[in-house]
């Protein structure tokens, strides 16, 4: 079974499927996969002193998927041997559920770690997905970064965080 490597979905995230997808992608090349890293972002119960009840994620889905593609291209440019897969969930999520899953595969571990970290940093910067936090006493839209895929400083910041 083949899954979309980059997707927005209302379904529970399946990290194993993402790992399988990136692994076979690298294996198609000469060196083979030596390292797979992954990242899961989960809904936490506490934020800024508030007790969180649930989160609701909303996406502009076609642009979100295109932006995942842009991030995957940036990764290929920096780490040519790496492959990534990203699924982001939308809808209402309970505490402990995964909102985002990323898998990165590469012949070597340094690149797999960097590609995975770069992906989550860029997702937070430029992918059109929003979250609304429902807490004890109210709800609030969490607003983070102004999305600007051409902002070179933001991209460099993601690269710096990804690179050891």
């Amino acid at each position, binding site marked *: 079974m083949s899954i979309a490597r980059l997707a927005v979905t209302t379904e529970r995230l399946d990290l194993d499927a993402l790992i399988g997808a990136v692994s076979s992608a690298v294996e198609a090349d000469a060196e083979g996969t030596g390292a797979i890293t992954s990242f899961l*972002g*989960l*809904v*936490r119960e*506490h*934020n*800024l002193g508030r007790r*969180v009840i649930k*989160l609701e*994620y*909303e*996406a*502009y889905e*076609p*642009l*979100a998927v*295109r*932006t995942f593609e842009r991030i995957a291209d940036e990764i290929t440019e920096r780490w040519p041997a790496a492959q990534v897969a990203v699924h*982001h969930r939308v809808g209402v*999520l309970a505490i402990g559920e995964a*909102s*985002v899953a990323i898998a990165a595969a590469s012949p070597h571990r340094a690149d797999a770690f960097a590609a995975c970290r770069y992906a*989550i940093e860029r*997702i*937070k*910067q*430029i*992918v*059109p*997905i*929003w*979250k*609304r*936090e429902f807490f004890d006493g109210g709800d609030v*839209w*969490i*607003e*983070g*970064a*102004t*999305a*600007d*895929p*051409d902002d070179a400083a933001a991209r460099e910041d993601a690269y710096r*965080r990804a690179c050891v």
Partner: protein
Amino acid sequence: MRVSVRVFARLRDIVGAAELEREVPAGASVRRLWDGLVAEFPDAGAYAGSLSAAVNTEYAKMDTELHNGDEVAFLPPVSGGEGVATPRIGRCSTN
């Protein structure tokens, strides 16, 4: 000419709808469309400094020229990723 407008998250709450149709003059820019929305929904003006826009599901600049039938999206600051803000606790010193 006629364009469709999509708004998201808190901006959708302000506008009171996820999608609108609006008339704009031929040659109007994304900014012209936005200014019209702010005139209709003054609270949207708070996003003047933090807004992103997309035309036909590609990121666009405020001076991008619109065409009849375009889908224009106005995007408040994004917050994909983990479930909540994520400061640092441990002892990695430069991040």
